[in-house]
C-alpha cells in the first residue's frame, strides 16, 4: 500500500498453480504405469503354470495400461483447459516461441551451461528454454502421438463403429497397418522413458546448481530465486 517504501526485490514467484501441480504428478504416475505395462504387453512375463481360468495376468496388465491411458488422456485434456484459464506459465507446454531469436539464444546458453561452458545458468520463472523445447516436443507432440496411436489400437478391440474407431480408426491405414501402429506406439515408450530420465536428472541437478528452486516449485508452486541479480 505504501509507495514510500522501496520495492522489495521479488525472490519468489507463484508459477505453478495447484491444478497444474496436481496434473504434473498424476501425469507422471500415469506415464510410469503406461511405460511399465506397455513394456509388459510387448514382452510378457514368463508363462504362469496352473489352470488358465485361475489367471488373468495379461488381462490385468492391459487393464492397467488402459486405465492409465484414460487418466493420461483426460489429464491431457484438462491440461489444455488449464492452459486457457491458468497463468502465463501454464501455456508454455503448448506454445514454443521458436520464432523468437531470443528463445534460441537462450536455449544455446542453456546448452552451454550443461556442457560446462557457462559458469552459471540464467534465471527462469517458467521453464528454461531447453526444458521448454523438450516438454513441448515430447509431452505435447509425443503425448498426442501416443494418444492417437493408442486409441487407434484401442479401437481394434472396441470394434468398428465404436467412438474410438470413428475418431481414431483412420490412424491405422494412415500409418500403414496395425503392426505399424503398434510399433510406432511402441517406440514411444523409449522416447518418453529417456525424456523422463533426463527430466528427473536435470530437475534434481538444477535444484542444486541453478539459481532457483525446481522440485519444490512443482510441490508448492513457488519459484524461489537464490540470488537477486537479474
Amino acid at each position, binding site marked *: 500500500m505504501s509507495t514510500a517504501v522501496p520495492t522489495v526485490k521479488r525472490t519468489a*514467484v*507463484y*508459477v505453478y498453480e495447484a491444478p497444474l501441480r496436481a496434473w504434473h504428478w498424476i501425469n507422471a504416475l500415469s506415464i510410469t504405469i503406461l511405460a511399465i505395462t506397455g513394456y509388459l504387453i*510387448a*514382452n*510378457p*512375463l514368463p*508363462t*504362469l503354470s496352473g489352470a*488358465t*481360468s485361475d*489367471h*488373468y*495376468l*495379461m*488381462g490385468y*496388465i492391459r487393464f492397467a495400461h488402459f486405465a492409465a491411458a484414460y487418466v493420461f488422456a483426460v489429464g491431457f485434456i484438462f491440461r489444455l483447459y488449464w492452459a486457457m484459464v491458468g*497463468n502465463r506459465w501454464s501455456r508454455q507446454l503448448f506454445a514454443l516461441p521458436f520464432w523468437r531469436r531470443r528463445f534460441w539464444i*537462450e536455449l544455446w546458453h542453456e546448452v552451454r551451461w550443461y556442457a*560446462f561452458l557457462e*559458469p*552459471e*545458468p*540464467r*534465471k*527462469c*520463472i*517458467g521453464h*528454461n528454454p531447453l526444458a521448454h523445447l523438450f516438454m513441448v516436443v515430447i509431452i505435447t507432440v509425443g503425448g498426442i502421438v501416443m494418444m492417437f496411436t493408442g486409441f487407434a489400437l484401442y479401437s*481394434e*478391440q472396441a470394434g*468398428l463403429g465404436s467412438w474410438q474407431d470413428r475418431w481414431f*480408426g483412420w490412424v491405422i*491405414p494412415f500409418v*500403414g*497397418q*496395425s*503392426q*505399424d*501402429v*503398434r*510399433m*510406432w506406439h*511402441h*517406440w514411444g*515408450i*523409449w522416447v518418453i*522413458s*529417456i525424456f523422463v*530420465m533426463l527430466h528427473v*536428472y536435470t530437475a534434481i*541437478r538444477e535444484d*542444486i*546448481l*541453478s*539459481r532457483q528452486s525446481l522440485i519444490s516449485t512443482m510441490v508448492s508452486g513457488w519459484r524461489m530465486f*537464490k*540470488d537477486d*541479480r*537479474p
Partner: protein
Amino acid sequence: MPTTETFYEVMRRQGITRRSFLKFCSLTATALGLRPAYAAQLVQAMETKPRIPVLWLHGLECTCCSESFIRSAHPLVKDVMLSMISLDYDDTIMAASGHQAEAIVAEIRQKYKGNYILAVEGNPPLNQDGMSCIIAGRPFLEQLKEAAADCKAIISWGSCASWGCVQAAHPNPTQAVPVHHVIHDKPIIKVPGCPPIAEVMTAVVTFMLTFDRIPELDRQGRPKMFYGQRIHDKCYRRGHFDAGQFVESWDDEGARRGYCLYKMGCKGPTTYNACSNTRWNNGVSFPIQSGHGCIGCSEDGFWDKGSFYDHVTDTRVFGVELNADRMGFAAAGTVGAAVVAHAAASAIKRARKPGQFGDQEPDKTKGQGTAGNDQTGERS
C-alpha cells in the same frame, strides 16, 4: 434360341426340389450371418437372375487364390461355376488359349457392357515397361485396364491384388502395384489374404449375386463381414493370452497344451481376417490351431514388417531396420551412463570451484534473467 438360365432353374433341373432349394437359401442366409428375412430375398434373387459373367484375370501371382477358391465347400465351386456365375475367362482353367482366349475378353466387354464382374488375382508390374508380366505380347496392365473399362465392379482377390503382396515386398523389383493404384473409376472390393479363405471368397461372390449390391466395406475396402475383426479378437487361444500362458519355445509344454503363440511372433493381434472363426478347408483348422502363429497374411505389406517370429518387429526407417526394444535399451543405457557421468562432472566442478560454478556467488558479469524485468506472478 438358348436363353440364359437362372440359378433356380439350374437347381431344379439337377433334380433338386423346391423344398430343398428353399432350404439351401435359408442355409446360405445363415452361413452369411443374415436375418431369416433375407432368405426370402435370396430365393427371389436365385429364381430370376441369369448367371453373371466373370472375367478372372491373373497378373503377377502364384495362383494360390485360384487354388483356394476351388477348395470352397459351401457352395461347392462346381456349383458356383456351373450355376451361379459364368466364368468366361480364367487362364488357369479355361479351354481356349492364345487368340481364342483373348477374343473372349473383347466379346464379354461388348456383350455385357457394365454388367460383368472383373476378378483380379495378382497385380500389374510397372517396371521393365510392364513386361515382367506379359499377356498376348502386351503388358498385363493393358489387359487389366481394358477389362476394367466396362465392368460393373472389381474384386481384388488376395493380398496381391489388394495390397501388392510378396512381389511388392522390398525392394519390389518389378514395381508391382495393387489394382486400386491403377484403376480409379470402379468400385473395388478387396478380399485380402495370402490366399483368402475359400468360403470367404465364394461368400463374397454369392452375396453380390444375391443382394445385388456390394457388401458393406471398411475404410480400406474390405468386406466388414469377414475383415471387421482381428484374428486375436476371436482366437480360441485368447484365454491363454489373457491368463499370461504362452508357448515359450517350439514344441515345449505350452505348445503341446495349445497356449498362446504371441511370444512366437503371432500376428493375430494385428491381422484382420476370418481365420479364427471361419477357419480353413471347411473348418478343419487354421494356422494358430496347427501350432504356428499367424503371419498376418491378409495385411498390407505384411512381408516387410520384420520377422514372423518376433512380436516387437523391426521398423524400417530411411532404409535401415531398427528394433524398438534393442534400440531403446541401448539408448536408455547410453543416456543413463551419460547422466551419471554428467552428474559426477557437475559435482566435481562444483567442489573444485565453490562459489563459481552454479553457486550463490557467481561471476558478476554474466546473467540476464530469461523473463527479464517483466517477471510477475500474476496472470497475464
